[in-house]
């Protein structure tokens, strides 16, 4: 199958690049091995839009983080993605930490981050009274924000799709070669593709893809981060994102509200062998809780909704690798997109997309289709708005997820979107059905039924997250016939 531009990887970076390129006259296909977009690091990270003081001045991480963070408020508004800007503190507990924080403040100033300053203990405790009183000082970053990383990815993908980008999911790239015809030949487990322009945004798999094209090898370290996600509560212990001083392994363990009002504890940082091993471990979770106690002495996992882990693609030289693939024509890449990758993603999309457009002489479309307007979620509507919504579409009257107050109308809409949900997890991430305290105990049978109806597949084909993750092994009659 031929496409002008083939993007490998439908994470937040690949989708951001696809969206920018979809402004131009070119056929775009995005391939991902996951059953959904945002199946890698984009679904499992802290969801922080970092202010931009962490990265060393002069690095791509610094530049793109600051640029990306500036784009977030307007982009989220345009795409209907949740965003808030509660600010962040980086806590210092010693004079040594103070020196580190001073360096971070200087970096922040140099990187062009607005309003970063060092504050003393009293001000920290006045801002966040549940902070460990042993805190000495903190870096205060008022522009630190929160978003929903997977919802951002869905929205970018949907916007690219309404402008013509095709998404091929459940498809894994196995080989990349340059043909005699000058085209890239990409072999997957399902098909053969040819394309003029190849863009590698493959997350933890990006080095593997890079090394298929280039002799200048890259090496990605798969760095797993484990988290606790706690239920939404009446009053969260912290309003802001609470960091500790960064270490070699990353930004350290944070305690932060999520943009949806849950509380997130994590991540750990462990280098692992298997880039797909997103399991959690007793040691990793214990590490997270122990570390959190430094920030929050009363830290508790009471009210835990789930624990999860995500894998950051750490390129061993430490910076993002972005641009044309060295020594190759018509090949571009974004490799080593770990934190602050989510924050930087919109800027990476612009940088890579516009680079490709310029170098390849792409022609801008006469008309770009605006994003599909997103309806306010039912749970966030006023009583009057709810009444109107049900009057307009009675399916808003059928509540499916009682914990997160999600209606049948919203679940069907999530499946019908341009890059719609096809799995239980896909519905969960788009609508929050099953994201609450009962963990889908009540709603998952109904969600499965709706997926089965919308996609015209039998109930026994409905999966949690694609592949063999079927919910059901057969009807009770099958089970009796076959035996077990």
């Amino acid at each position: 199958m031929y496409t002008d531009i083939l993007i490998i990887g439908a994470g937040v970076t690949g989708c951001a690049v696809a969206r920018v390129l979809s402004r131009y006259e070119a056929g775009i296909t995005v391939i991902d091995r996951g059953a959904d977009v945002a199946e890698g690091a984009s679904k499992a990270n802290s969801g922080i839009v970092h202010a931009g003081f962490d990265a060393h001045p002069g690095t791509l991480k610094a530049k793109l983080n600051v640029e990306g963070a500036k784009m977030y408020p307007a982009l989220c508004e345009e795409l209907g993605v949740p965003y808030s800007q509660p600010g962040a503190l980086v806590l210092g507990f010693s004079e040594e930490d103070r020196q580190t924080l001073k360096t971070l403040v200087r970096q922040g100033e140099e990187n062009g981050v607005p309003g970063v300053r060092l504050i003393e203990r009293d001000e920290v405790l006045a801002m966040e009274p549940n902070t460990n009183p042993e805190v000495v000082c903190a870096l205060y970053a008022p522009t630190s924000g929160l978003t929903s990383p997977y919802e951002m990815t869905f929205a970018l993908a949907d916007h690219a799709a309404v402008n013509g980008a095709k998404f091929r999911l459940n498809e894994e790239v196995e080989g990349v070669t340059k043909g005699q015809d000058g085209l890239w030949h990409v072999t997957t487990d399902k098909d053969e593709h040819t394309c003029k322009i190849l863009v590698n945004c493959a997350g933890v798999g990006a080095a593997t893809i890079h090394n298929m094209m280039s002799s200048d090898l890259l090496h990605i370290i798969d760095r797993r981060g484990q988290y606790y996600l706690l239920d939404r509560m009446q009053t969260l212990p912290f309003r802001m994102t609470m960091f500790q001083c960064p270490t070699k392994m990353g930004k350290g363990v944070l305690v932060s509200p999520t943009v949806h009002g849950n509380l997130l504890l994590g991540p750990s940082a462990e280098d692992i062998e298997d880039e797909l091993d997103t399991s959690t471990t007793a040691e990793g979770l214990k590490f997270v809780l122990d570390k959190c106690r430094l920030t929050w002495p009363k830290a508790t996992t009471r009210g835990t909704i789930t624990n999860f882990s995500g894998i950051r693609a750490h390129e061993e030289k430490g910076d993002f690798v972005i641009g044309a693939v060295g020594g190759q024509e018509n090949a571009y890449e974004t490799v080593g997109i770990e934190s602050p990758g989510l924050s930087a993603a919109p800027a990476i999309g612009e940088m890579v997309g516009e680079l490709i457009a310029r170098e390849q002489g792409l022609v801008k479309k006469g008309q770009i289709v605006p994003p599909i307007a997103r309806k306010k979620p039912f749970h966030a509507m006023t009583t009057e708005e709810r009444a109107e919504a049900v009057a307009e579409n009675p399916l808003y009257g059928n509540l499916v997820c009682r914990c997160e107050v999600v209606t049948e109308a919203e679940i069907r809409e999530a499946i019908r979107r341009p890059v719609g949900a096809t799995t239980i997890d896909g519905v969960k991430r788009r609508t929050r059905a099953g994201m609450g305290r009962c963990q889908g105990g009540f709603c998952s049978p109904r969600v499965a039924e709706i997926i089965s109806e919308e996609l015209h597949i039998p109930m026994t084909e409905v999966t949690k997250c694609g592949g063999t993750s079927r919910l059901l092994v057969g009807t009770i009659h099958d089970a009796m016939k076959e035996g077990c």
Partner: protein
Amino acid sequence: MNSKCVDILVIGAGPAGLAAAIAAKEDGIDNLLVLEREHNPGGILRQCIHNGFGLHRFKEELTGPEYAQRDIDRAREMGIEIQTDTTVLSVDGKTHTVTCVSSAHGVEIITAKAIILAMGCRERPRGALGTPGTRCAGIYSAGTAQKFVNLEGYMPGKRVVILGSGDIGLIMARRMTLQGAKVLACVELMPFSSGLNRNIVQCLNDYDIPLYLSHTVIDIKGRERLTGVTVAKVDANRQPIPGSEIEFDCDTLLLSVGLIPENELSEGAGVKLSPLTSGAEVDDVLQTNLPGIFACGNVLHVHDLVDHVSNESFRAGHAAAAYVRGQLSGGDTLDVRDGDGVRGTVPQRIRKGVSEEVDLMFRPSGVFRNATCIVTCGGREIARKKAPIFTPGEMAVVKLKPEIVAGLDDTVTVTIERS
């Protein structure tokens, strides 16, 4: 937006809501409405197709649907209106205004003189346990699996490990076995089961399903669908003992690790909850801290037997009717406290000067053999009950006779005295 007024609004048409509505109607309350979020009334009993319900109340062994149907039929005969497919979104505890939604009627605002909370309970999910591992398909709470099998006709898996020995888990061990699945083990963290003894015998022992007490699941494996779990023995502090690991090859893990009263609406209304029961704190007629708001059934505290749910809910229904008529005496109350060996006694207070029978219901805090439950009032013994065994898996009930209740003048304490 529609709005209407009723005398009594019952939230939930499971066994609790139905019994409360029937009692209120018997007392002559005609302007009565029951709201139910599911398409059919009956609550969780609809999926409990095994028998053993109704032994106390009907002196018969009924299945869950049969038990529910008796109340549904009775409610229909009495002309009680049950509005199904309707979800309550919020309850205002001060104005007694309830906002609900349905596709048939849109958003409705209902004001009630009295409200009876009968929303039932939900299962504790995996997240609450913090079990590490993967987040693959094949992990269900026992009740979700029960719904798939009994109401939808689907098998969630073929090789099953059950974590927790709650009653639903035990019932599902038998149900999955009868349906052709292989149940490999039932694993319980505590040194005793949290289920009814009769269920251990009839659902595990009769099918040679091993029960691993003082064990838990410490790892969950499988990238897409579950492929196995690791079980380990735990020490006295419930920490896994290294070297005691047992690997199970399974495609399904069912969780039966406790039930939690579903009190989100109550909390929103300002109802004071007990940290021990996770249900409302109530007086002897099941009235919460908010006048005219009553709670009964599993939303108040988790019961083992539906017969007890019904009896408790009749009481709530009668009391709500009396409240509507202005005939419910209020005034001072005496606290009921948990003594040694006792957890979460309901009711938490008794009105002073009433002379009606009161059932004190609680969970023993451990397994006590040949023990005696003693109830005292200001140090004076007012009731006692001996039992060959008290266990957390079986709710204990001690009755206070009307003449005893009439004479109460101080804090009531419930204690289990071990021999």
